[in-house]
């Protein structure tokens, strides 16, 4: 990509960002309701939140989401990759068929019963939901791979392990990272759900707490913090993708 275009795109992000804030401001002024404060009011609440303990809650939420995604990734990717073989897929395919369409979030009562109301339950629920999103994508990527790549590698004297290392994994990686970017949104939605009760830590708690106090600037400050969390994860993943999948963008 020419550097001129990159610069241009940097500008476009800024313009769209400002435009969104402007629309928010317009709505806040037009609605004139305490339920939608102006961006400036929220900004001040955010700053005073930082001086208080907003960052601690943000950190705790980040840890929960981070663990959830990392755990899901480390379980789903290997399982998805080995499904390239019919022998393995015989078991993985029915697993996906039967368990993926099921709304995993309703498992919350069971998970709390089994793992308590601590961080573990929260992480496990995020893991389960993200796990399936990544598994479905990784499996599809591994199975739709042209067999020519595998034949080509075999003819060079590759072993079974080499096939994963040199073909299946690198070929599926762009799809895995896309699945991860998509699952960030889901992970944070689940995070809000699991943090909205039986805890006194995390951004979900802050949102529910501010809501019950009808402190709308605080409520939106917590929402902004949650959005920032998602935004940062998204940016990091995109950077990682450009780095490790340079061939896609070459």
């Amino acid at each position, binding site marked *: 990509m020419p550097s001129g275009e990159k610069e241009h795109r940097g500008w476009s992000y800024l313009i769209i960002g400002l435009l969104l804030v402007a629309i928010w401001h317009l709505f806040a002024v037009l609605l004139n309701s305490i339920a939608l404060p102006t961006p400036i009011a929220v900004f001040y609440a955010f700053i005073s939140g930082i001086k208080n303990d907003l960052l601690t809650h943000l950190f705790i939420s980040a840890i929960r989401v981070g663990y959830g995604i990392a755990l899901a990734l480390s379980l789903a990717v290997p399982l998805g990759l080995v499904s390239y073989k019919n022998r393995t897929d015989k078991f993985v395919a029915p697993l996906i068929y039967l368990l993926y369409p099921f709304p995993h979030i309703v498992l919350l009562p069971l998970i709390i019963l089994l793992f308590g109301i601590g961080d573990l339950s929260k992480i496990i629920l995020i893991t389960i939901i993200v796990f399936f999103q990544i598994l479905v994508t990784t499996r599809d990527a591994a199975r739709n791979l042209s067999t*020519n*790549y595998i*034949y*080509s*590698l*075999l*003819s*060079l*004297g*590759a*072993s079974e392990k*080499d096939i994963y290392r*040199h*073909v299946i994994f*690198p*070929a599926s*990686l762009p799809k895995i990272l896309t699945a991860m970017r998509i699952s960030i949104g889901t992970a944070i939605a689940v995070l809000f759900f699991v943090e909205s009760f039986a805890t006194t830590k995390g951004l979900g708690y802050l949102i529910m707490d501010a809501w019950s106090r009808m402190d709308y600037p605080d409520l939106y400050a917590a929402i902004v913090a949650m959005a920032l969390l998602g935004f940062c994860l998204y940016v990091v993943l995109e950077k990682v993708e450009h780095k490790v*999948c*340079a*061939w896609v963008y*070459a």
Partner: protein
Amino acid sequence: MIESKGISKVYPDGTEALREVSFDISEGESCSVIGPSGCGKTTLLFILSGILKPTSGKALIEGKEVVSPSKEVALILQDYGLFPWKTVYENVSLGLELRSKPLQGLRGRRVEPHTGKKERREIVSSLLQDLGLKGFENHYPKQLSGGMQQRIGFARALALNPRILLMDEPLSSLDALTRETLQNFLLNLWKNNGVTMVLVTHNIEEAVFLGRKIVVLSSRPGSVVKTIENHKVGDVNYRNTEDFFEKCRAVRRSIEGGAT
């Protein structure tokens, strides 16, 4: 010496790809395998290279049955078989890298020679130089033209210094000019390196230009219609001679005869 002894292949889905295919190619010979699309040419190459097992019959190299990919044999696939996620350098050195570690499962035998990292670098660099790919080491295949991509494919196969080169329509997606250049390249490679070449193609001129022996296969299931000797192969100007055109006509007649 490559021998195909009554090779038949039926895929698990019931498709019969090859029926009783027999021919042999002596050491240092070049052989073209030609036939209508879908006649099992690729299957035949996969069997000769040890990637697929025949349903019946066997492939022999130097009198030994082919059971797994051998170090002596390099395979070049249609549409290059390059890995888009690897750079030019990584693609070319991959075979050496894979072969440089002791292969397990091959009856516990260590595969020699052991090529170290430095040695690999030297082999790859000189090959890239020879094939006009110097300076493109860190490019990805898709950044290069079709002709260059195919040369990467050749470089990767040649890096293993194989005695047998099996090629599956290696030039089929190239434009006419690039195609002729690479045909000349293959001809010189065969003449100068003493490598045994098997070229699967559906292009009659290519089969006649490069194959001292031309095996004509029938449509599916592929079986040998005719084996044509073509001793004049070896000169780049062969393609402009009357003998060449006569041979092309002979091959075309055999194909048409076998297709009906």
